[in-house]
């Protein structure tokens, strides 16, 4: 049965001051602006094409890299590391976060360590990782994990602590205790904060991953390709790889944003942008 619309259906607020760009239009205009400035800089000969190739050169380099398979290979290598590192960081971070929320002693010991780790830029782990694992795949993934898990742990703990005490009390008076209370009330109530934590965690994972790939050579990831393009002073390839990195970042973040919107709108937590 579909329910009739209740009288308090939230209505979109008309924007103050009349004209507002749609989100897509805003992005397109910003991108066009960057392209225009870039084109002007190169077309006027203000910057040498060696330092900054024209948009057209970069586009053809990008297209060439995609069609000859080098960029897809680099992207897939990098994404595999990202997914694996992120998955381990999520499991690890979630467990520690749940522990921090559940036990004050755990929070004051392990929690303090995790908070301290957050102050350490993930790439600072790389020398130690290289010492332990050599200049290898494992060192890169290790940096991704230590880069992402603290923020996931902190966000998990915060999202559980911020569950409305009223909902917990309501659950208890309905007969939910212990594990049932956790599973049916605390976990679903914590989901919006947790998703936000994952979104934050992936940004750390992504940045740590590229930084580690840039430094540790020998692989075929995006960071490796970027370093070797730099070594051969190939600005067009550098720029085309940077564009790929930005696009991947935007796409993944859009995925998390969509998930975030979904869990929030279901709970009536969506604030109009």
């Amino acid at each position, binding site marked *: 049965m579909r*329910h009739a619309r209740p009288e*308090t259906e939230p209505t979109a607020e008309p924007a103050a001051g009349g004209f507002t760009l749609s989100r897509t239009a805003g992005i397109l205009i910003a991108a066009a602006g960057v392209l225009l400035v870039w084109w002007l800089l190169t077309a006027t000969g203000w910057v040498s094409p060696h330092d900054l190739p024209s948009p057209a050169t970069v586009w053809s380099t990008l297209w060439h890299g995609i069609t000859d398979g080098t960029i897809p290979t680099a992207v897939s290598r990098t994404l595999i590391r990202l997914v694996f590192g992120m998955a381990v960081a999520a499991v690890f971070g979630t467990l520690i976060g749940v522990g921090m929320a559940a036990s004050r002693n755990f929070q004051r010991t392990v929690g303090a360590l995790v908070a301290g780790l957050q102050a350490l830029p993930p790439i600072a782990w790389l020398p130690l990782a290289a010492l332990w694992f050599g200049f290898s795949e494992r060192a890169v993934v290790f940096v991704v994990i230590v880069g992402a898990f603290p923020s996931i742990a902190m966000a998990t703990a915060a999202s559980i602590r911020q569950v409305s005490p*009223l909902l917990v009390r*309501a659950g208890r*008076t309905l007969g939910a205790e212990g594990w049932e209370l956790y599973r049916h009330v605390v976990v679903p109530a914590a989901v919006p904060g947790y998703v936000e934590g994952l979104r934050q965690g992936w940004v750390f994972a992504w940045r740590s991953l590229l930084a580690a790939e840039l430094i540790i050579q020998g692989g075929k990831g995006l960071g490796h390709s970027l370093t070797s393009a730099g070594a051969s002073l190939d600005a067009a390839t550098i720029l085309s790889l940077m564009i790929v990195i930005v696009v991947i970042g935007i796409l993944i973040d859009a995925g998390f944003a969509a998930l975030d919107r979904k869990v929030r709108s279901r709970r009536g937590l969506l604030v109009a942008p």
Partner: protein
Amino acid sequence: MRRGTARLDVVPDPEPADPKLSLRGVRKSFPTQRGGRVMALEDITFDVAPGEFVCLLGPSGSGKSTVLNVLAGLDVPDSGSVVMNGNAITGPGPDRAVLFQEPALFPWMTVLGNVEFALRMVGVPPGERRDRAMHWLSKVHLARFTDAQPHELSGGMRQRAALARALACSPEVLLADEPFGSLDAQAREALQGEVQQVWGETGTTFVFVTHNVREAALLADRVLLMSASPGVLLEEYRIRAPRPRQLGDALLSRVVVDIHDRLAEEVSKVAARETGDRTDG
């Protein structure tokens, strides 16, 4: 505790049967920010008969919500006994449903899902949950909104859904903590009507906290008046007006004036004491 409104006592009190709920010498204090303790309840003793509708009425800070939380098993008293059907209350349970000030619906479930969840928690098999939930949602006139998320409903509708969720498990006692406090006058009146109706139909024992004198007089068999800091019972009013009651009933208006005067006296006493405290300190 004095007995008030003797002129309304046209029939003698019924023989006290075994009480449904019984509080004896209940004390409860809470820690303050500065490390001390503040007394919320001081020696509270009263019984509630099976099927009775009792309203706890008092100014804010009189500990009436604490009494309710103690009955719900959400707060543990410092001393004294809290008993239901002769057994000590040690924690919350679905035999005592609670209607909170806010509807406290789970926002990730639909209206129907909220009621079904309550049934699931008391072990109603999956096949029966939907029909039973629909029955209670129809009773509170929400049959058309079962698939809505709570945030899509008005405040009054949400509180009606919470009422359906509370009653669906057929609790022996319904505890309500100023459930209509944040509603507008119309929604409040409609819900007062629905509460009277389900109370009459189910025979559930109701303990209802309010600071609204008219609401207490309208709903209650008995009004227990509490005073502020620390909370003690001040008066007891037995209200024998026939049901269903209307707010305009002459008998009720007299009770309302009586209680109102007593309450005003108490509030000014407390105010005077607090002013005195300030000048002393």
